[in-house]
């Protein structure tokens, strides 16, 4: 039961990050490695603010804003300075390593005994006695659902349509008289805002920040997106965002089982990498998004059709302006 709860808690926290990765990887067609820096950035902001006795909820909003700013930086590096997408992310990821350690003041910052969004007077008043073990999972569920529904709503707006269009076919965005660079920057900002928020919530659930939280985050995010979208590609009753959430929970469950089977937790990154590889092989998703329209927001189909595929990851790096 405790294992299930912990899988659900972490799976849903990571699902928020997965939604961010979904925006960049699936919608923008932008492999954004900034995530490895923005996730621990959120954790550092959460831990730093809470350890100074600030409001834990305020730290979530601070993380959200910081993440948006970070995403904008990645976007500006890519769009304005025409640095290819992968490199723009790597630059930001590397720079952020310093930033989040600076914010936390050191490489590891525990916040035991402090009040968090999961552990404060209000929450403890609502969840009393036997229910108190469920408080974290319920709060995570609420935050995750809010994130999901706000994202779903945004994707159905005109601005959201432009975001979908820019990953689909940049030319059409220009044709509509809209600056495609701005749309990409906006997409990266929303994505990283979600990732950073997720990091902040994760730190509050784990009750510490650690600089080593970062590396591998993007792999977990991609794994969630790919598990979700390939496992549930035939499911049309819910949106892809829901599939991503289930993908994240399934992924966390796989990792939990691997550890339960006796693998030491120091092997976590290896488990992460191997699981990701297995998922990629099983889902056949080894190349970039195609232009033939089988890659959808509402109904994600992912058959293998090399003929209709865009160039591989190395080929299409210009992005910004041709």
């Amino acid at each position, binding site marked *: 039961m405790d294992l299930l709860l912990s899988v659900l808690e972490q799976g849903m926290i990571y699902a928020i990050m997965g939604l961010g990765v979904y925006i960049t990887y699936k919608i923008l067609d932008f492999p954004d490695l900034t995530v490895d820096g923005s996730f621990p950035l959120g954790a550092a902001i959460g831990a730093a603010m809470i350890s100074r006795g600030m409001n834990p909820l305020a730290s979530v909003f601070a993380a959200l804003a910081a993440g948006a700013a970070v995403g904008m930086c990645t976007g500006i590096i890519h769009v304005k300075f025409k640095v290819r997408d992968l490199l723009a992310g790597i630059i930001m990821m590397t720079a952020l390593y310093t930033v989040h350690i600076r914010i936390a003041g050191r490489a590891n910052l525990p916040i035991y005994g402090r009040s968090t969004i999961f552990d404060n007077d209000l929450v403890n008043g609502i969840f009393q006695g036997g229910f108190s073990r469920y408080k974290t999972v319920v709060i995570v569920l609420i935050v995750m659902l809010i994130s999901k529904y706000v994202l779903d709503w945004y994707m159905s707006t*005109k601005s959201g349509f*432009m975001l979908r269009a820019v990953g*689909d076919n940049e030319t*059409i965005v*220009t044709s509509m*008289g809209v600056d495609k660079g701005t749309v990409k920057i906006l997409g990266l900002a929303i994505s990283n805002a979600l990732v950073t928020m997720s990091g902040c919530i994760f730190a509050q659930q784990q009750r510490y920040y650690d600089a080593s939280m970062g590396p591998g985050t993007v792999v977990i995010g991609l794994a969630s997106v790919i598990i979700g979208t390939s496992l549930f590609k035939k499911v049309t009753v819910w949106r892809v965002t829901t599939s991503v959430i289930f993908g994240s929970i399934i992924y966390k469950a796989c990792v939990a089982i691997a550890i339960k089977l006796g693998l030491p937790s120091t092997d976590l990154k290896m488990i992460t990498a191997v699981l990701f590889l297995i998922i990629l092989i099983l889902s056949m998703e080894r190349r970039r998004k195609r232009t*033939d*329209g089988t890659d*959808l927001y509402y*109904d994600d189909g992912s058959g293998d059709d090399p003929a209709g595929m865009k160039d591989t990851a190395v080929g299409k790096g210009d992005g910004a302006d041709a």
Partner: protein
Amino acid sequence: MLELKHIYKTYNPGTVNEHVLFKNFNLQIDNGEFVTVVGSNGSGKTSLLNVICGSIPIDAGQVIIGGKDISDEKEFVRHRRIGRVFQDPSKGTCPSMNIIENLSIADNKGRKYGLSRGLNKARIDYYRDILADLDLGLENQMDSPVGSLSGGQRQAVALLMATLQPIEFLILDEHTAALDPKTAEIIMKLTDDIVREKKVTTIMVTHNLRYAVDYGERLIMMHQGNSILDKKGEDKEQMSIDDLLSIFNEISIECGN
């Protein structure tokens, strides 16, 4: 009126591949004119369109619309008054979005893409009507992603999208070249109908000499960055495919082909 004044454009300057395309190129197109442009590969047809649309930078010269110099306007700003259809049907539509979503995007051109609802539900009946007019069966597939349509169907949707909102210029870049002859015919017919109905200034680059002769009221032949033939009105009416072909052959001989 659209004016190109003293346009200079060199590709790959300073390299072994340096290629001077436009050297003091000038062109005037009146409002409401339907111009067809022909020419061999590399003659500067598509570059001409790219210069007008701002898709490539020019080395010198001016692009003037209605007396206003727009040479410094960015590509996306210029497109607020330009509709463009490309040779590749996938360039004019969003493949993962359905027909209604695509048309809704196009219907909002010129306005802000903000946080109001993306789908234009009030216009769905109108979309159904214009799709039904195409006679391609698209009115029954409005929920299908455009990527699952055939090239001809996609190009038809692209053409509708380009002209859904009022535009000053319609730029057609060999937009029938990738289609089978029958579909090309349908799209060309549709193009002509739209141009007549909307009275939009149109520039159509084509390799199909018959289209160049049959459609439009002005014909330009490009060669090595110059317009070597420019016929309007009655002069154009009298042009035949054979006339065009013979000029093509002359050029080819000059070039040593």
